[in-house]
């Protein structure tokens, strides 16, 4: 067993690094015995999180979220569309999650990441959650309506992963929620053909018959804000907010999403068996 605590000289530091790559599980377990992780965090602590609103100037709402090294950029563009016949006073949200090759060495142009469509679907489930009987989602689609039956907003939410270092869903959800918080509806007005066009800047006097349909730029109401935490489980240890290295060696991953009233939105766990009562995670 090569020495774990390399004390400054080059030969023992090289051995630690080699040990980390050759026997990653033993390397991490040795750290777990001391209740600490390779980057110095205690088991239950998440990485530093930063959030920047308005990262993309040309979008109607945007945010850049970073949890440790994992970086996600979310942007929302709004467009006017005619609503469907079944729900004439509801708008629509389209969620797309992209993992370009910049984010990780595993993703190549011809070979999309396996996890991308899964995270995308999970995100759209969490954000939309349309249920016929009771509405339990984050956003009320009726908020997105302009003229009932004729015009409604369509929001295109695009999330780009710029760096994938574990806990992808957490960062993506954080950036999406922040982008929706930052969202301001653009001003629209009715032009001569009776169609709604987006007006940039203040409304000008202009042609006759042109009046602004929504007078002031308003923000979107969020009903309840979801927040999530991903953890890995390994034997008896629960590690919060794993990095990509930890995720790849430890097979069991759990993602818990709670909303502002502490109700469970999602408990997502594909993988190995775990003991019950993991409410310790929350």
């Amino acid at each position: 067993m090569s020495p774990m605590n390399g004390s400054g000289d080059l030969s023992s530091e090289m051995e630690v690094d080699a040990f980390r790559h050759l026997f990653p599980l033993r390397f991490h377990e040795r750290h777990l015995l001391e209740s600490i992780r390779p980057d110095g965090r205690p088991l239950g602590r998440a990485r530093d999180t930063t959030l920047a609103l308005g990262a993309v100037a040309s979008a109607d709402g945007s945010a850049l979220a970073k949890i440790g090294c994992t970086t996600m950029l979310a942007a929302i563009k709004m467009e006017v569309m005619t609503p469907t016949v079944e729900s004439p006073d509801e708008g629509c949200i389209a969620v797309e999650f992209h993992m370009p090759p910049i984010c990780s060495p595993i993703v190549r142009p011809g070979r999309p990441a396996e996890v991308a469509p899964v995270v995308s679907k999970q995100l759209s489930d969490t954000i939309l959650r349309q249920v016929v009987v009771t509405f339990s989602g984050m956003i009320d689609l009726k908020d997105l309506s302009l003229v009932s039956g004729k015009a409604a907003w369509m929001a295109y939410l695009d999330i780009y992963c710029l760096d994938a270092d574990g806990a992808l869903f957490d960062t993506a959800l954080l950036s999406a929620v922040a982008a929706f918080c930052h969202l301001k509806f653009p001003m629209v007005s009715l032009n001569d053909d009776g169609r709604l066009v987006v007006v940039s800047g203040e409304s000008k006097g202009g042609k006759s018959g042109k009046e602004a349909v929504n007078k002031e730029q308003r923000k979107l109401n969020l009903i309840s804000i979801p927040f999530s935490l991903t953890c890995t489980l390994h034997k008896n240890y629960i590690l919060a907010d794993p990095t990509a290295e930890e995720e790849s060696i430890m097979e069991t991953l759990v993602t818990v999403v709670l909303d502002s009233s502490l109700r469970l939105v999602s408990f997502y766990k594909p993988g190995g068996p775990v003991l019950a009562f993991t409410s310790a995670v929350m």
Partner: protein
Amino acid sequence: MEVDRADGRTRNQLRPLACTRCTLNRAHGSATWSQGETKVLAAVFGPKAGTKKNENPEKACIEVIWKPKTGQIGKPEKEYEMILKRTLQSICLLTVNPNTTTSIIVQVVNDDGALLPCAINAACAALVDAGIPLKHLAVAICCCLADGGYVILDPCKLEEQRTKAFAYLVFPNLLASVHRKGSLQVEVEPVEHGIITSVTRGVMPVEDYLRCLERGRAVSAKLSEFLRRSMQLQAPSDSPTAG
């Protein structure tokens, strides 16, 4: 309050189960599993030589292909594939045949609610049929939260669409727990109390989720009994067995 559901079942009653093995001649293992109207066909091919690019060659690799009944393959199918893959990876003994790939193809024949649990049960039965070494079996159940705040099991499609929240749960199922020989207190809690997979949709309070877990665990014993019975009865002949 008892018979609230559209088809007259009580809260804890499952739909009629049916499991057939050896349905496909050329596949190494195959099974159909139906719960009421929902029917799924699973086929297993493998182990085949070689693993895919990013996979660990020291272990066997599992590949899942999900075919919907109609329409193109999109994100929901990819999500199901990933959930199935990780669930089955945890029940198979991966170190027995390293550097091989086992393919599991799941074909949805009819979808009438609780599709994912049905598919997991079918895949597990197909793996047993193919003779792939497994650590233990897995039983899957869908629990949903009805309006009154109580838990109903195995919803049909209408119930699933109308409900506020539902959870798909998969529990491990060991031989020892079925025969009840000796004590299972290996660790603090016995192994069959664990959950292999849990996917929830919709918002529900935490206590309700824990209640779903308890209820699901209680029913998993019944499901596992059915699964094991249908495995045994089918050994020599090809005649289908109804549960």
